[in-house]
């Protein structure tokens, strides 16, 4: 067992809240998001998600809880053999929905993130920024209760970053709690929101 990346970290993410999670590279931002997303189990400590004790959540409950959580991965995690459209529609397909019931919604969202022209293209030939937008679209297609975004603007120009940030803010206004992990100070300065800063394994919160 290696060193503890996160220690004595204690916080609460209220419903409909909006916050940034920042800290130097390697501080443990991704690790913290993985804990929240339940893809990592804490070696010690207590995590409660939607009022449920993490350690009491069973394998069959996990997917249903995850459907309330949207995630934008730092490395996107798009499936290379599916088109942009199919990648974004994946959460809906996994829920057993008929394509006809969501097709226009997915197209609309893709257009809004500027991927209307790149809809039927496979991820390997998308640019970094395009992949990022596809990953964001996939995370919010189902309007999750909480959105965890790991460096969601790391690969786009400042103008598009602002546009994507607006989208996330808008999502928040509609009732989704948002956590944006970033070390982009410029981005954080655009919104007056709660800031959680990780350093040396500890967490400071600036409301």
């Amino acid at each position: 067992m290696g060193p503890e990346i996160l220690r004595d970290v204690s916080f609460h993410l209220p419903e409909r809240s909006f916050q940034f999670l920042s800290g130097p590279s390697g501080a443990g931002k991704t690790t913290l998001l993985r804990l929240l997303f339940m893809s990592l189990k804490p070696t010690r400590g207590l995590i409660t998600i939607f009022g449920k004790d993490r350690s009491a959540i069973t394998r069959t409950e996990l997917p249903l809880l995850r459907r309330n959580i949207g995630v934008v991965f730092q490395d996107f995690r798009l499936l290379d053999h599916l088109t942009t459209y199919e990648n974004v529609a994946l959460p809906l397909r996994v829920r057993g929905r008929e394509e006809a019931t969501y097709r226009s919604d997915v197209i609309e969202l893709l257009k809004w993130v500027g991927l209307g022209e790149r809809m039927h293209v496979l991820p390997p030939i998308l640019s970094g920024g395009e992949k990022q937008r596809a990953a964001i679209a996939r995370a919010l297609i189902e309007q999750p209760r909480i959105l965890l975004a790991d460096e969601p603007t790391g690969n786009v120009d400042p103008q598009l970053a602002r546009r994507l940030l607006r989208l996330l803010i808008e999502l928040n206004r509609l009732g989704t709690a948002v956590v944006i992990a970033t070390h982009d100070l410029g981005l954080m300065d655009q919104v007056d929101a709660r800031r959680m800063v990780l350093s040396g394994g500890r967490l400071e919160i600036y409301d």
Partner: protein
Amino acid sequence: MTETRRLLKNLGARLSSGARDAVSRKQMPIVPPDNVAGRAMVLVIAIMTFLSCLTLGAVTLVRDTAATWQTQIAREATIQIKPEEGLDMTAALAQARDIAASYSGVLDASIVDAQATARLLEPWLGTGLDIDSLPVPRLVIVTIDPLSRPDFAGMRAELQETVANATLDDHRTWVDRLVAMARTTVTIGMSALVLMLSATALTVIFATRGAMAGNGHIIEVLHFVGAEAPFIASQFRRHFLLAGMKGAAAGGIGAILVFIGFYWWSSRNMATPEADQATALFGNFAIGPSGYIGVGAIVIVIAVLTAATTHVTVLSYLKSVDSTHPDSM
């Protein structure tokens, strides 16, 4: 800003309404087909199906033939009278025939006359034979109603009492041996079939685990977007069901071709010694309708077995992945 809001509101409303529409464009499978069930697996399933079908064909052939023999043999009994110094053979034959005919369940009793007996012996003794000069046993053929067999024990006792040197053979020993032989063959064939089906299932397990390991990144993403284990399993199952159906159909068609080929061969070579040998053993060398139905059943069983094995393997794999190392993000 209002644009975004409208978009998302719209989205929420439509998502919750969940209106269903049957029209659906063909989407790419979530698990790409080419890196799952390769040609090798289709080939293995085809071979296994082929062998299973041949085994089943052989089993039905033996069973049907044995059944035919059995009814043929069970329809007849023979009374044999050995010649002896001072025995009036003609009288003894007539007496034996009358005794046999008096039992209920006997349809007919007829004496094999001197010419017929001579003909029977012709292959060994040649023609122009005076049958009366030789001590040749004579026969009475008793035809039996197979549904209500006569009282053989009573008939045997009465014959022994009244006709000297008469023995009754009701072919019971033969029938019993035949039934035992057929039963053994069927048991062996069925065991072989079970072994082959197990080997097929094991092959599918290996192929499935390979496919899962090769598609780990897809499984991970599916987990992240909230896919339940049965959904993930179904994505793999459809490929394996297809591969299973392809392989099983190919193997089944191959087996049917072999059956037809044998039938053609045996009917074309009807008069040759080899074919006579086969005909003597198996009657007409033909797989009956039950054989073809069996082939169809095996094809279906193997396709279903493939799909079911994949399903169970994927679920247990997902369980083991989950407990050993958590997903990475």
